[in-house]
């Protein structure tokens, strides 16, 4: 009897909370604290984490299974705070940028200059390597390996109040991304 009540309760909150049949992003709990509520089902959604902590046995296992839905959507674990997202992001996990090997993608080629975006705030500009077997493969969309020097080139000049920034990162081009090197890379 108690199990049946739990099941119906869970099914109601899940259908109210995640709405897998729509394409709209789900309102997060942080957002419901303000006046902006996208749907009227916010209170049920907010109650979910408290009830989960106290449910024993089958109910907890049911909740765990509903998180692993075949369409890839996750349940309450999807609403991570900004601090958690930041802490787990590759940029923070990487640590200091100097001498880190990353992979980037060329998004613009101007003559011999390759503009490579590697997932940070700025892109880096590298010179195309001189004549070699792979010289023709450095085109727009190619993935390359880089050794980072700096995420943003800034310097404080005499008499200036703030740093002058070049709006670019600095990295050395190591080569094209081959399959065998993919396992060693962070990004």
């Amino acid at each position, binding site marked *: 009897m108690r199990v049946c009540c739990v099941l119906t309760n869970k099914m109601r909150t899940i259908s109210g909370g995640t709405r897998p049949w729509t394409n*709209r*992003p789900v309102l997060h709990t*942080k957002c419901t604290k303000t*006046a*902006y509520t996208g749907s009227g089902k916010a209170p049920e959604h907010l109650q979910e984490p408290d009830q989960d902590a106290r449910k024993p046995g089958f109910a907890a296992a049911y909740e765990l299974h509903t998180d692993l839905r075949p369409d890839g959507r996750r349940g309450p674990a999807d609403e991570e705070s*900004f601090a958690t997202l930041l802490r787990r992001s590759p940029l923070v996990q990487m640590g200091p940028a100097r001498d880190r090997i990353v992979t980037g993608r060329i998004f613009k080629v101007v003559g011999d200059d390759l503009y490579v975006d590697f997932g*940070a*705030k700025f892109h880096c500009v590298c010179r195309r390597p001189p004549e070699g077997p792979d010289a023709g493969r450095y085109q727009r969309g190619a993935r390359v390996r880089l050794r980072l020097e700096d995420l943003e080139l*800034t310097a404080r000049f005499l008499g200036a109040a703030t740093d002058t920034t070049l709006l670019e990162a600095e990295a050395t081009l190591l080569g094209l991304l081959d399959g065998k090197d993919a396992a060693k890379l962070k990004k």
Partner: protein
Amino acid sequence: MAAGFVTKAFRGLRWPRLPAALVSCSGHAYGTAAAAETAALPTLHESTDDTENLLRLSLNQPDFFRLSEIFNLKDLFNARVHLGHKKGCRHRLMEPYLFGSRLDVDIIDLEQTVEHLRLALNFTAHVAFCGGVILFVSRRRQFSHLVESMAKECGEYAHTRYWQGGLLTNAHIQYGTGVRLPDLVVFLSTLNNVFQQHVAVRDAAKMNIPTVGVVDSNCNPSLITYPVPGNDDTPAAMELYCRLFKMTINRAKDKRKQLELLRGLGSSAGPL
């Protein structure tokens, strides 16, 4: 060339349809953003009761256009909106909006950005709902085409070229009398190419035009009515902002058309 472009913008679709009464109130002072919304209602000389009811209806609910659905914190994070400049480039007044500094790189607090962006988009939607003229300004050459095509797609205006000094403050002399100034200026980057604040920020404040602006960690947010702390250098972030503003404005305009049709007003009511 720039003057010709802006003239065409200001004397575009909306100018021929404006009655003389509205032209005369285009220079009215709007002290705050809230006053701008409410002042639009009583100063209409030719509005009917239906139009006023429509406009008041939109102000009854906090999220009339349901803009909280179109983005969330994860979208902002994936678009790298939280990345700021280095610590040495930081503007003192941006410190409240920063989450912290990681290895000398400033990180913008996305929890605050979500709130600010929601307010900004809501205000933009209300201005578009009331038939206001929105001008997108950005001096980043990398994103100039993106901003211009986005403005074209949502039926609003953009200015991504050299800003002539008297464009807003001297408009009646430079472009003739009775020019309608924008009702909202949206800055997708508040700096110009020499890392100084864009002249339009100060000029819009002088002309009592509310502004929405994306402020990075090296920008001054003080003169902007609805600042949105966020990254303005990465293409992913700029594409996200453009997409959000376009969706907001289109949503607001569609809602206006839908409500007008429902009430049987037809096309005779005009933009305001």
